[in-house]
């Protein structure tokens, strides 16, 4: 389980950003989490709470936006959302879709801070 080290990176990143902006508190961290990122949402949430202890983020919320897996269908020539990460095929025409456009995201997009 690597979610704790991921959570600690998030906390570290948020603290650096807060220091840069002179924030006194961080209320929330907004995170985009892809279904193919290899990180489990539930495990990340509980690790986050631990990682926040005794930091500016104590008591803050981790708001996760889950990003579905979007592939490019070479036949339809269109981006498509796959229904399952066990089946990388176009949901419209069934063509195998090796090109992944989205779903690997693991990024902090915003912070809610008090200055």
């Amino acid at each position, binding site marked *: 389980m690597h979610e704790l080290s991921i959570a600690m990176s998030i906390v570290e990143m948020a603290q650096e950003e807060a220091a840069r902006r002179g924030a006194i508190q961080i209320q929330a961290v907004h995170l985009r989490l892809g279904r193919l990122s290899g990180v489990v949402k539930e495990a990340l949430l509980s690790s986050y709470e631990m990682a926040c202890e005794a930091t500016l983020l104590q008591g803050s919320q981790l708001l996760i936006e889950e990003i579905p897996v979007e592939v490019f269908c070479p036949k339809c020539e269109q981006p498509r959302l796959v229904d399952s990460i066990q089946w990388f095929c176009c949901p419209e025409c069934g063509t195998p879709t090796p090109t992944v456009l989205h779903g690997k995201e693991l990024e902090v997009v*915003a912070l809610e801070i008090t200055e």
Partner: protein
Amino acid sequence: MTTQTHVAPRLVEVRQNVLKQNDIVARALRERFRQAGVLAVSLVSSPGSGKTAFLEKALTLLRARYKVAALVGDLATENDAARLARSQAPVKQILTGTVCHLEAAMVQSALDGWDLNQLDFLFIENVGNLVCPSSYDLGEDLRFVLLSVTEGEDKPLKYPTIFNSADVAIITKADLIAAVEFDEPAARRNIQCVRPGMDILKVSSKTGEGMTEFLEFLDRRRVQGKNVGAGL
């Protein structure tokens, strides 16, 4: 009653990849490998799928024609490095302690003192784990995911993320296919479901089956890599 001014929190945009530090180091490593003309290959799999046996065989065979070296990650013990050292290739163990995967910085510090210009191939054996290593770029040119026939043909469906993050699948312990009634066509179908178009090799480290094809595959990729590096 005193009134207290309540300052509403302000939303500030950040947009930073959480693994940015790892990705920066991985990119630098990839560039170092390219400049040195070394093909870096990582191996991921579950524990006990035969990574070390396969790597020992590969190093021994490759040493006849190439300069090869290996880094091997484990939580504890240097047993794997000792086994791989039998191939006579330079081998370094990376002990991760309680960390369940390798990160780019661990690879970077393990390479201290090694002259990459002296190498043709560098192998990086990850910690046996089909979950966590998928998130970390190690700067490798190729990621091989190993699937032993004793694990069952549905492994790719159970761990789609790691299979999707890899470039090549290797079915190992091919000598046991009949004994464990491994459904090879189903395994191949499952791999293609989670990573369409993925190259699949099949080997037995015990009998040597498939090792020639594996070496030819590496040869081709090395030449391709060199051509790309030369801007062709």
